[in-house]
């Protein structure tokens, strides 16, 4: 297999880069070691499109965050991904913290963030009635938004594949050989040749860079534990509530999600194993203890799940984006921690710019379809719309996930979409089947059945999320 460009890593950054490159008349492949896209930091982060006041002026983080906010609107519209502009508050819990807000405001203005203002307790309580007693003031950032990071990734990838890019799952890069002008990637799916390689391998981007002898990237994974609360709790906060940032990041936030749940987290624990996403009791406890400072009504009785993710923190403390010193056709996209999601569309734009310099004769395609059709969302329809839909296709009349009201038709769509779902978690991320209160207790086995039927494989080969995440073993006696 030979491509002009091989992108390593199907997180939000790799997927959006692939989509950006699918606008050109080149062959692009996205290589992912897991069974689906969005399997690393992308599926476990705060899901915020930051306004951009936090990053150091002049840094790549600052520049790409602000540009990313602009491009995110366009991308979400084209890809039919819900983006909710709910604003954010950074809360000061004592008079001493107020100068910190002022500092953030000034930094934000320098970064070009519009509409920042400091509001004091009386006004804050009016806007966020559940705010903690000790909150004295807050920096308000009206341009802060929320988006579902894996939905954006899935949508971007679907669109890239529609426009001719290839998605190679279960394709882990083991070794890279530099071959004259290009590269040979030795993968778990065989050898893949490419003229240009883009390293978007997240927490493993340092390891991938080392495969060509580039040791300049040092990733220190920073694990963050989160709680997700039931939809009944989604209105405890109307905007994203941050606390004053520290050296270890933006601290614990409380925020509604686009799906109406409440997300609480993250902790920040530095460790060595970027694949380790085990939450710890201490991590979860620290998240809870911080969260109730912001919103005292947060109650773990309403937690529906907890999880953790690794931010690809890099010792350089800024994004590393550009050609490797070892080989200019090897482009590192590394250290993409917060505001990585917010910056992702701008990172894609920047990387595509670099690629166009490297490939002679590269041109925009005459036909590029920027749109991904909106998936059917039965739960959001009116009765009249539902009646019409079921009349057209009976599969939309069979509810599989009762907590989230997800139909068989939607699950079938998710499996047969470009770069579609191959496992139970893939169906979950695309449709929300299994994401509700019962966490797949009732619908899990039905989803397995539908996957097996649609993919025409035995039921006991269906996994939770690829690899050895088997769900069923042998037949009973």
């Amino acid at each position, binding site marked *: 297999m030979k491509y002009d460009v091989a992108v390593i890593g199907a997180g939000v950054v790799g997927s959006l880069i692939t989509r950006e490159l699918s606008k050109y008349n080149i062959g692009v492949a996205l290589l992912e070691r897991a069974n689906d896209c969005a399997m690393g930091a992308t599926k476990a982060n705060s899901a915020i499109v930051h306004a951009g006041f936090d990053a150091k002026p002049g840094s790549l983080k600052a520049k790409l965050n602000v540009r990313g906010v602009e491009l995110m609107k366009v991308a979400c519209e084209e890809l039919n991904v819900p983006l909710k502009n709910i604003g954010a508050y950074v809360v000061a819990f004592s008079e001493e913290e107020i100068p910190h807000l002022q500092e953030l405001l000034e930094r934000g203005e320098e970064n070009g963030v519009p509409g920042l203002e400091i509001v004091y307790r009386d006004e804050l309580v009016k806007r966020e009635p559940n705010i903690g007693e000790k909150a004295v003031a807050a920096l308000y950032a009206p341009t802060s938004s929320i988006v579902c990071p894996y939905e954006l990734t899935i949508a971007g990838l679907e669109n890239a594949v529609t426009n001719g890019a290839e998605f190679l799952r279960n394709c882990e890069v083991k070794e890279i050989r530099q071959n004259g002008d290009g590269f040979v990637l030795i993968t778990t799916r065989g050898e893949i040749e490419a003229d240009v390689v883009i390293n978007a391998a997240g927490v493993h981007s340092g390891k991938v860079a080392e495969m060509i002898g580039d040791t300049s990237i040092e990733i220190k994974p920073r694990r963050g534990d989160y709680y997700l609360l039931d939809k009944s709790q989604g209105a405890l906060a109307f905007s994203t509530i941050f606390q004053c940032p520290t050296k270890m990041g933006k601290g614990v936030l409380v925020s509604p999600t686009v799906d109406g749940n409440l997300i609480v987290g993250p902790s920040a624990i530095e460790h060595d194993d970027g694949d380790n996403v*085990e939450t710890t009791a201490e991590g*979860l406890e620290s998240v809870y203890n911080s969260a109730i400072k912001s919103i005292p009504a947060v109650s773990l009785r309403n937690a529906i799940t907890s999880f953790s993710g690794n931010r690809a923190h890099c010792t350089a403390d800024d994004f590393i984006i550009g050609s490797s010193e070892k080989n200019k056709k090897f482009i590192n996209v590394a250290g993409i921690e917060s505001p990585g999601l917010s910056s992702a569309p701008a990172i894609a734009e920047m990387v595509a710019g670099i690629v166009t310099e490297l490939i002679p004769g590269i041109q925009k395609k005459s036909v590029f379809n920027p749109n991904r059709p909106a998936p059917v969302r039965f739960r959001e329809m009116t009765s009249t719309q539902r009646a019409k839909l079921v009349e057209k296709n009976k599969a939309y009349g069979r509810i599989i996930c009762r907590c989230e009201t997800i139909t068989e038709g939607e699950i079938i769509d998710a499996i047969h979409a470009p770069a579609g779902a191959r496992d139970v978690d893939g169906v979950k991320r695309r449709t929300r089947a299994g994401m509700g209160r019962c*966490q797949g207790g009732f619908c899990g*086995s039905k989803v397995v059945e539908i996957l097996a039927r649609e993919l025409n494989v035995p039921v006991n080969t269906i996994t939770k999320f690829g*690899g050895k995440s*088997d769900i*069923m*073993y042998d037949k009973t006696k």
Partner: protein
Amino acid sequence: MLNYDLVVVGGGPAGMAAALQAKEEGVEKIVILERAETLGGILEQCIHTGFGLHYFGEELSGPEYAGRFIAEVEKTDIDVYTDTMVLDVSKDNVVTAVNNRDGLIQIKAIAVVLAMGCRERPRGALSIAGSRPAGVMTAGTAQKYVNIDGYMPGKKVVILGSGDIGLIMARRMTLEGAEVKVVCELMPYSGGLKRNIVQCLDDFGIPLRLSCTVIATHGKERLEGVTIANVDENLKPIPGTEQYIECDTLLLSVGLIPENELSNGVGIELDRVTGGPVVDEYRETLHKGIFACGNVLQVHDLVDYVTEESKIAGKGAANYIFGKKQDGTFINTKGVNGVRYIVPQRVNIENEEDVKLYFRVGQVYKGAKVVVECDGNILSSKKKVMLAPGEMENVKITPEMLKNMNKNSEITVRIEE
């Protein structure tokens, strides 16, 4: 829009008993809406025996118990829609449902019986730390894999929670060749029936560890092990008691939650303790014409009591449909001193039939008395050999007792040691 006298949401033991009773009372147009492919509810996957000892006086399996009611339903002209999900119940009793044959269905009903049952508490509600691999599931999900789908969901098993489903699955997995290493129970007592501890654990040499919980799961793709630890009197893990147990499966049997999403949609008031609607002695909710019975009302220990309760709701719905249900004077019931809750929460003192108050206790009592009191008068006091949280109890209130009450009265049930 279809028209029915009575719409029953849910075709498990509760829904079927309510529908059958309403039919017997003379209600003409009745429909049962069931989300599964068949009637029977969760009993269909409960292939062990132990059902029906009270109601039928014989020991049946779950499918047998359900089968008797299914046969009765089939003999009547009660309409049944299976594989049909109710999406909404409106304030004026219009039920909206959907299936893949008829599409969207709207039914105007005079009365509605809610019988949606309950679901299991999932892992997320427990905040167990660790990884999130395959192999962690509720005991009921495992039961479906084994008994309905015919596949084993694991080989080396740890069970957290000694609720009845956990105990039943300990035996079931063992019989299917899996190794059940231990059942951990957070509380100092089991939440399951005594007979299940004996027949499902003791008989198979499966250890039950009380005051013990799972504090972490390990393994990236499939579960590889769990860490368990003893807990103190505040249910907090005791440092130093951690123990790693190798296993590929963790089954959770940590509580059941009535499925009241539809009730919430109508705005029906729920009891914070039971998680089910507040009802009167005919199981009518505070929303006129909407009744509730079975595990959606309160989590039962025995299906026999579900049947009993649902017949009462069926009768109440029939009375409502015929305009015979009295308004009357309602007073509250209240569980105190060891009694966690009472169903029904309100009783019409003009009622002319016996009323059974069902309740559960909050801890194990031996030789304690159940005392029923109203306005300073002891209505009854009965010594019980054993009272346990896993077993539902009841006391009887007679019309004679009710006659002496007034609108300000309150019936309390308490435990005296």
